[in-house]
Structure formats: structure tokens, C-alpha cells
């Protein structure tokens, strides 16, 4: 079984596209491309994506 990469307490791992606290990378993926953001930053990004989707809808 693959070993996961793990975020530290209160943080989320991301490579800009994938987000997670514990991530099992697919074959060929590079763990070094991942970095940590805070949970607050993550929530803000989710909100931002959500608003962008709704604006695109209403537009």
C-alpha cells in the first residue's frame, strides 16, 4: 500500500489543484510539488471557487 504525505496540524497540503490532509499520490506523481497552507486559506479558496462558479452561472 502507498504511503501518504501528511499535513501538519491545522494545515492542508496542496499543489495548487489537489487539496488534502493526507494524500496518497498516484503513480508518477511528485510529492515535492506539494506545500502547506492553513485551513483558513483553504476555506477562502473554496469560497472563492464557489463564488466564481456562481458568477459564471449568473453571467
Amino acid at each position, binding site marked *: 500500500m*502507498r504511503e501518504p504525505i501528511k499535513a501538519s496540524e491545522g494545515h*492542508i497540503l496542496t499543489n495548487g489543484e489537489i*487539496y488534502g*490532509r*493526507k*494524500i496518497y*499520490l*498516484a503513480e508518477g506523481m511528485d510529492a515535492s510539488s506539494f506545500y502547506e497552507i492553513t485551513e483558513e486559506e483553504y476555506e477562502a479558496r473554496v469560497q472563492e471557487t464557489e463564488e466564481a*462558479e456562481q458568477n459564471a452561472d449568473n453571467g
Partner: protein
Amino acid sequence: MAIVLTDDKYYKEIAQLIRTELKCETKYKPSKFVPNLLVALLDARVAGMAEGYEEGKSYGVALGVANGKQEAYDTFWDNFQNYGNRNHYYYAFSYYNFDDNTYNPKYPIKTGTTNTGGQNLFYSSHGITDTKVDIEFEGTANGAFNSARKMKTIKKMIVNENTTFTNTFTYAESLESITFEGKIAKDIDLHWSTKLTRASVESIISHLSSTTSGKTLALSEAAVKKAYETSEGANDGTTSPEWIFLDFPENWTLSLM
């Protein structure tokens, strides 16, 4: 030819038959037997007619109401779903438009291949907890269950390799049961659904495409740990220290939140 009954025993037998039939204890004098018999029979007939009328009326009303309700149901859903041919359901069951009492589709839901066919299908639904029918997403499933915070059961989600899942399950926090059919070949994120059953987790994994690459499945770590308890079926609240995913595809990234 008429038969004349001269023996009392015949009158007594007839009287007893009448008493049995009418469930009464009325005594009949032989001298007044015939008129009393006629009155008794007439009363019985009238009573029977009244009872039959009431029974029939009550049944008729109930039948009429039931038929009326069925006709109203058929009329609405035949038109709303175009006799099963509708394929554009953009925001169709969103917000307060329907609840569990009013949402009762007659036909499976089949969204088309347009950009918006299945988009935001149950977006921010406030009152629907069960999809009740199969839903096929031929194109996009973007936002389909976004913010449907009361949705517990997605009966069946039929997807293909072109179906997209952007924000499909964002804030779907009550979701417990979901069954897939087809192939999941795009990024899919169910990490808000912390109550997913093990059967649901297995359904998701078993329908991941084995030929796609660079895609991610995101799940709730709490849901997965609970679903794969250390003592299967123990229902004692213990969670596995490390969940076990059987045959998780190597071509997929799994993210736990």
C-alpha cells in the same frame, strides 16, 4: 302451484331464519305472521339499501379522490419531465422549489450532454433528502448536489468518462448513501460527506476509471475510518487506526480531509 303451510313448525322455522338473518329476537304471532314477515322483510331491505348506499358512497368518494390525485400527479410530472424525455434539468430541484412531499419524479432523470443539462440539479435544496430515482449525467454534474445539506440518499448516479464533478458535492454534509454506475474519470470530491457508508465508499472506488490519469478522489478521513472499523460490524464506535482500501487504483490520487 302455491303451497299452503298448515303446520306451525314451518312458521317457526321461517321465523327463526328471519331472526338469524336480521340478527334480532322478534317474536311473530301466527295470526299476524304474514304482515309481520312483510314488514320485517321491507325493513331489512330498506336498511340494507341505506347501508349499501353509505358504503358505496364512501367507497366511491375514496376511489374518486384517489383517481383524482393520481391524475393530478401524472399531469404534473408528465409535463415537468416531458414524459421522460426531458434532458435539461438546470437548477430544476434547487433551493425551496421542492421538498420530500412534493418531489416525487415519475421518470428517471436523464440530463443531456449540454454544458448545463445536469448542472446545479439540487443546488442548495433545502427539503429533499432522497433522490428517489436514477439520475444519469451524460455531460456535467457540476454543482448537482452543492449545498444540498439535507440530502441523505442518492439512489443511483449514472456517469460516464465525460461527466465532470466540479463542486458536485460541496457542503453535501448529510450524504450517507450513494451508488454509482458507469465510469468516474474526472476529479471528484466528497470530503464534505462525513457520514458516507462503507458500501458508498466501495461503490465510488469500484467505479473509478482504470485508464484515466492525473485524477483525484477526495474523501472524508472520518467517514473512511468509521466505514472501515477495526472490528467490522462491531458498531462500537471504534475506528480503524489505518483504513484499508482494497484495490485502490494506482492511477488515482486519493486525498483525505
